[in-house]
């Protein structure tokens, strides 16, 4: 029985109804970013349902505890404003859960009411609700603007605003904004940067927070995440390397303007050339030679590409997700001579289309492709019905299309609710490129093994 049996092949214009979205709302991104600060409890300023949903979704994605507070608005707060709720929440949280930082984000509710977080946070300070040495930082994250990626970005800026100071003495370090990637990816970015022998401050850093080991004890605030003492120094860094225009660009530019820390914004280091760019940038900003081990890691990627090129070449791909991921993935797929023919992001934005067009032109994409900004998976499925593809790349929700249409499917992006691995193994860097190729190859070859006629079944691929 088909699962998405109501999706017609004929495409009709829709202006009001989103079906099977390819994005979600800002606060979940803010919550994820805040988890990347050591000792920080994210706090959702709104009614408690949003917070419950965001925690549940992040928990399902990571299979790890995600703690966050909520202002628990009721009807009264919704009418009169949520100041009293937030003040009370701040006091309770510092007393009961004892975090070092509370990172408050808004929801559609508090935004629609017009609560001013700046003013409420000041009031909390004045009323002595914030203990000595503790912090309340915040970001405005109206869910009716942008997407979950915007929320992530806004909280990154909130962190920079909350801790960074102009005229911080120079440290010679570089700031790295990893963008919305997995904890395993953040770990890999740190590993590569350390291999380049650079001193850095990476934030947010969720590695070890949302992929914590099971050691027999639960600590709401594990010894992981960007340290406050480091965050206080971001204004003294010699530069910022920001990964991902949508998730990291705005924060990098904020630090440039406010702290006079210059920035370079790069695509996420997913795939060969994007990683090259990252390493090359580190080389230049750090004035360091690239060590041979990195050349070797890179060489393995080229080796894999050349060994298995025949299986990648000419395969059509449909992919959906967040702009930063898609830009780098599309380039990598093109470098494998694959054909990303359908591309959808739910996240609105002006530059995405141009950046994809530039990649397609540069890589001489031999066939036309379709792209939709602010699109949904219903449309993507319709495109697929009209022009079938060999591979799907996107979050878990793609599995319904994959099954109905019998298309190999690689899970990448947010959320992944039905597979493991993203917490533990990166897709950034050269190691990540290897992993991506392995995943793609496996789904192709598994299908071939399952479906090729007996006489044609190959032992050796």
């Amino acid at each position, binding site marked *: 029985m088909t699962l998405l049996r109501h999706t017609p092949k004929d495409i009709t214009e829709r202006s*009001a109804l989103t079906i099977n979205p390819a994005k*979600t709302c800002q606060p979940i991104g803010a919550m994820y970013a805040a988890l990347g600060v050591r000792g920080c409890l994210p706090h959702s300023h709104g009614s*408690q*349902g949003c917070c419950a949903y965001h925690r549940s979704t992040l928990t399902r994605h990571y299979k790890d505890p995600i703690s966050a507070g909520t202002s628990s608005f009721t009807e009264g707060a919704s009418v009169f404003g949520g100041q009293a709720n937030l003040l009370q929440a701040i006091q309770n949280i510092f007393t009961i859960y004892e975090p070092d930082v509370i990172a408050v984000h808004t929801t559609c509710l508090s935004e629609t009411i017009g609560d001013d977080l700046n003013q409420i946070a000041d009031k909390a300070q004045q009323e002595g609700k914030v203990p000595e040495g503790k912090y309340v930082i915040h970001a405005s994250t109206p869910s009716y603007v942008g997407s979950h990626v915007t929320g992530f970005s806004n909280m990154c800026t909130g962190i920079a605003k909350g801790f960074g100071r102009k005229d911080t003495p120079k440290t010679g370090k570089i700031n790295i904004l990893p963008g919305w990637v997995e904890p395993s990816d953040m770990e890999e970015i740190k590993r590569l940067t350390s291999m380049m022998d650079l001193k850095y401050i990476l934030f947010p850093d969720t590695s070890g927070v949302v992929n914590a080991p099971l050691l027999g004890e639960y*600590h709401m605030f594990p010894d992981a995440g960007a340290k406050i003492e480091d965050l206080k120094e971001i204004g003294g860094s010699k530069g910022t390397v920001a990964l991902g225009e949508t998730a990291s660009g705005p924060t990098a530019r904020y630090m440039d303007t406010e702290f006079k820390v210059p920035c370079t914004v790069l695509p996420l280091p997913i795939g060969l050339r994007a990683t090259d760019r990252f390493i090359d940038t580190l080389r230049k900003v750090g004035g360091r030679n690239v060590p041979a081990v990195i050349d070797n890691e890179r060489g393995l990627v080229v080796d894999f590409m050349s060994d298995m090129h025949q299986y990648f070449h000419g395969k059509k791909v449909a992919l959906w997700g967040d702009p930063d991921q898609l830009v780098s993935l599309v380039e990598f797929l093109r470098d494998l001579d694959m054909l990303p023919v359908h591309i959808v992001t739910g996240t609105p934005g002006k530059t995405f289309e141009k950046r994809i067009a530039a990649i397609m032109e540069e890589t001489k994409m031999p066939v036309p492709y379709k792209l939709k900004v602010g699109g949904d998976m219903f449309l993507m499925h319709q495109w697929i019905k009209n022009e079938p593809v060999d591979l799907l790349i996107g979050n878990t929700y793609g599995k319904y299309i994959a099954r109905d249409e019998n298309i190999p499917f690689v899970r990448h992006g947010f959320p992944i609710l039905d597979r493991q691995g993203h917490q533990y193994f990166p897709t950034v860097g050269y190691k990540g490129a290897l992993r991506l190729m392995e995943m793609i190859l496996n789904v192709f070859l598994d299908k071939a093994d399952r479906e090729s006629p007996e006489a044609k079944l190959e032992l050796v691929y």
Partner: protein
Amino acid sequence: MSTKTKKRKELTPDEVRQELIKKYPPKVARKRAKQIQVNTGEEASTPEILSNVRTIPGIITMRGCSYAGCKGVVLGPTRDIVNITHGPIGCGFYSWLTRRNQTQPPTEEHENFLPYCFSTDMNENDIVFGGMNKLRQAIREAYDLFKPRAIAVFSTCPVGLIGDDVHAVAREMKETLNKEDPNHFVNVFAFSCEGYKGVSQSAGHHIANNQIFTHVIGHNDEPKEGKYKINVLGEYNIGGDAFVIEDLFERCGLTLVSTFSGNSSIYDFERAHTADLNTIMCHRSINYVAEMMEKKFGIPWFKVNFIGAVETAKSLRKIAQYFGDKELIERVEKVIAEEMPAVEAALAEIKPRTAGKTAMLFVGGSRAHHYQDLFKEMGMKTLAAGYEFAHRDDYEGRRVIPSIQVDADSRNIEELDVHKDDARYKESYEARKKALEAEGCEFSDYKGMMPEMEKDTLSIDDLNQFEADKLIELYKPDIFCAGIKEKFSIQKCGVPMKQLHSYDSGGPYAGFKGAINFYKEIDRLVNSKVWSFVKAPWSTNPELQATYNWE
């Protein structure tokens, strides 16, 4: 956050209670103290428990919101309604396929919108200038694409604030669309289930009940073929529970008119009032519909429980008793006799490994009660239990309803004024109910969880993360049951955790077959090797004096 405390054995339940609230600011402590009660083991002395009250801001609660209760719980499982979330994208996205309610359309041609998520994805413009036009257009587009039997609209937080009249839009579109094509009836209705309504999912249940009752039930008078017609209310087919119940009913010869709302169809809701009896599983989420159906159509209701083999058998027998038909009674006995040997065999195998172990359950509005029966069957003791969004009647029993004080948050949720439908009211049921009541058969009642719990166990309402951690520290139970948000902090402590909202990956747990599944699942969890691997070998034996000898 980890204060050292005396071991559980030395603490009385009252001391545990003090431990739980010790760290709170005075105001919080005062309120929480009323939500934590020590059970007495008998109905008459059941203490009063504060519940269905606001969660204190800043407390890491398990609760969700009214929208989740309405769209997620009650209407979510119905396959053939196009459920449009009116609001920004998040709420609709998070409630998309995440509750594990399964559905089985009879044929490929039958509608099934469960794998879809529909949203008006409101943007800034809609918030500033109002979203009614967008909603109108969204309903139009849904109709043109799918021609469904029903389109439902669910309001999220900002909708109420900006003043969109979703009910007016629904009414208007219903009229327009039905005028356009009089041969295809489409029902359009809306729910004002904004997340800030009430204090938890519970408000959303009530709102869902009201609208389904107003707009759907009674739409079609054509009865379903068959004898002994009943509805099952408050069964959501998580992990396939409804399939098990359906199978049992079929073998007993009962006709299931509709389930609210596991594996359900709007066509069945429309004729739910043609049933002879309403049975209630989850009392909290659906008792309103049962009450209203009795008032309007005269259909009696009683509480059943298909969780646990003993309770399943009891419930089936009670249904048979209601109809009083010898043939039915015999068939029910036959089915129970067919099922019990497998249950007993499974228990004989598993019980030696589970007996004497301890459990805690904090979930929902009925499961924290129902699942205690399964643990009891396995010889396990429930040390503490509580609901996430229940009211006092779910804890203490419906007998306390008259004494429940209605606060401002609950008063905002509409109580429908329901009247007898003279044409369709079945007087005969009333007489049957009276006669059966004389025989000791209880109707319109739920005894609640607390009277059935052992003396000196705890009942805790709206448990939060701090208290959960504390309970684990003080009691080290063998298993803890709650929801996804709680799961992994518990397991980090080396205590297995079973989700009782979505069942993790398991189920069905209803009926006899489900009971067997549950025994096996709990056996797997509490006896899994993995918990013995938590400490590395060198951490239990860290000395290095005896250096390794290579010889």
